[in-house]
């Protein structure tokens, strides 16, 4: 065993020196290789982490929200619907929710205006006050210290005291939020006192949700119920789709890389043939030559994989996936400054390793074997 290990160590040592003789070729190959792995690993790590984050956060979303739909569009829900919803067996609480959108013409950004629930003791807001999300707070030009000025559709500017900021760590869910009191919300949007944006349901037993949804949709025509599992499924599909789309866009460059690698790995240069011939002539066996070249392929591909993986991890979890941000941002003015909690899926990393390291290493073996079994004299000629 000891002999075997030291033999492999010498082979590796010899391979590294042999690779150093063809520095430029191997360096170019290594750089292209690790960059492809870096991009693939970044997309995979980011996709997985954001999916996990969305699932962990949104498991606290309301069990169900009831919307009113009219002519295919959202309509305001009447207060009268709350009492019959509260009477449905299994519904613990039905509560009207007030939230809406505001386009800020000065900043050219969209904010989500929301009234916190009466049960939320931590965010109690009096008329004339507001709590803003980290994305809104970042726009210092507009905020001017402690006041938030909102321009309603009709009427004079609304001036609100900013009494608190939401935790910057929560930017992923709260970047564009502006929390304000119910009277201010209704005055701002000129809403009558008997309507809500939608109704949030608290349901006692999660297994009863499907039955309750069926009861609501058949009893109250024109309503639509979005359950928590719908929300979770939406985000699962959004990120799978986006990750798939990004990988599809990368497909062309990955394909080009495959051709490049295959060309480099499967074709032997005259110098490499001569080297194999000399090694055979001085007594190396075919197995030794194969082992040496196996190490060469293995060192390049495993090295590129490890470096690509480490850099992708740093990129996603320490530099907030800055290179992927333009794809995610779209036309948003407010983009959350968020740090994802690291999440590593061993199966995903093993799959990436299998599809990057193994093909390259395997592709190098066949031409080497062909050259190694030929007579040294004819190989060197």
């Amino acid at each position, binding site marked *: 065993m000891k002999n075997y290990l030291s033999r492999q160590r010498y082979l590796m040592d010899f391979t590294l020196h042999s690779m150093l003789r063809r520095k430029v070729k191997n360096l170019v190959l290594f750089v292209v290789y690790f960059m492809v792995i870096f991009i693939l690993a970044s997309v995979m790590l980011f996709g997985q982490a954001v999916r996990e984050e969305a699932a962990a956060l*949104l498991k606290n979303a*309301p069990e169900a929200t009831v919307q009113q739909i009219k002519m295919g569009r959202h309509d305001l829900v009447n207060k009268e619907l709350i009492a019959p919803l509260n009477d449905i067996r299994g519904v613990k609480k039905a509560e009207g929710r007030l939230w809406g959108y505001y386009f800020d013409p000065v900043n050219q950004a*969209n904010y989500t205006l929301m009234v916190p629930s009466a049960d939320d003791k931590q965010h109690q807001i009096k008329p004339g006050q507001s709590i803003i999300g980290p994305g809104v707070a970042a726009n210092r030009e507009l905020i001017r210290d402690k006041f938030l000025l909102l321009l309603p559709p009709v009427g004079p500017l609304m001036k609100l005291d900013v009494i608190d900021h939401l935790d910057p760590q*929560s930017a992923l869910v709260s970047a*564009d939020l502006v929390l304000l009191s119910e009277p201010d919300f209704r005055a701002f949007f000129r809403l009558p006192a008997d309507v809500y944006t939608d109704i949030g349901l608290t349901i006692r037993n999660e297994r009863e949700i499907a039955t309750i949804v069926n009861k609501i949709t058949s009893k109250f025509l024109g309503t639509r119920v979005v359950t928590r599992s719908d929300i979770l499924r939406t985000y699962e599909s959004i990120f799978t789709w986006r990750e798939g789309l990004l990988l599809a866009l990368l497909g062309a460059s990955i394909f080009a890389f495959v051709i490049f690698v295959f060309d480099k790995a499967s074709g032997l240069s005259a110098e490499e043939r001569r080297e194999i011939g000399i090694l055979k002539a001085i007594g190396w066996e075919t197995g030794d030559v194969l082992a040496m070249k196996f190490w060469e392929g293995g060192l390049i591909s495993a090295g590129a994989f490890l470096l690509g993986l480490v850099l992708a991890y*740093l990129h996603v979890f320490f530099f907030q996936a800055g290179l992927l941000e333009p794809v995610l941002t*779209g036309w948003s003015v407010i983009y959350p400054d968020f740090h994802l909690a690291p999440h590593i899926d061993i199966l995903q990393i093993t799959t990436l390793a299998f599809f990057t390291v193994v093909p390259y290493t395997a592709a190098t073996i066949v031409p080497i074997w062909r050259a190694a079994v030929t007579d040294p004299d004819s190989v060197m000629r």
Partner: protein
Amino acid sequence: MAALMVLAIAVLLHGFMSGDRGLSQRAKLVGQLGLTDLALFTEARYTRHPSQADLHSAFQDHPMSFDHFPTGSLIAAPLQNFNTRAASSTDEAKK
């Protein structure tokens, strides 16, 4: 090579051992405010709250208006959220 392996192992360990980085706080806020969506794409209402959007919101302006936000072309419509009515109608038909 050895250094790279050590780095990769360190990264894996960091991934498994690092805490939730405020995840529980964020989850608490979601519960308190009853939030339903991530604030990743704030340019339009159907990208800000894709789970709450109706199927027509991408084409909201007039009958021939196509969705013109880049995010709209990148995220799939939550079709599965529109099956509740169909499911209940089927159940009623069975009865």
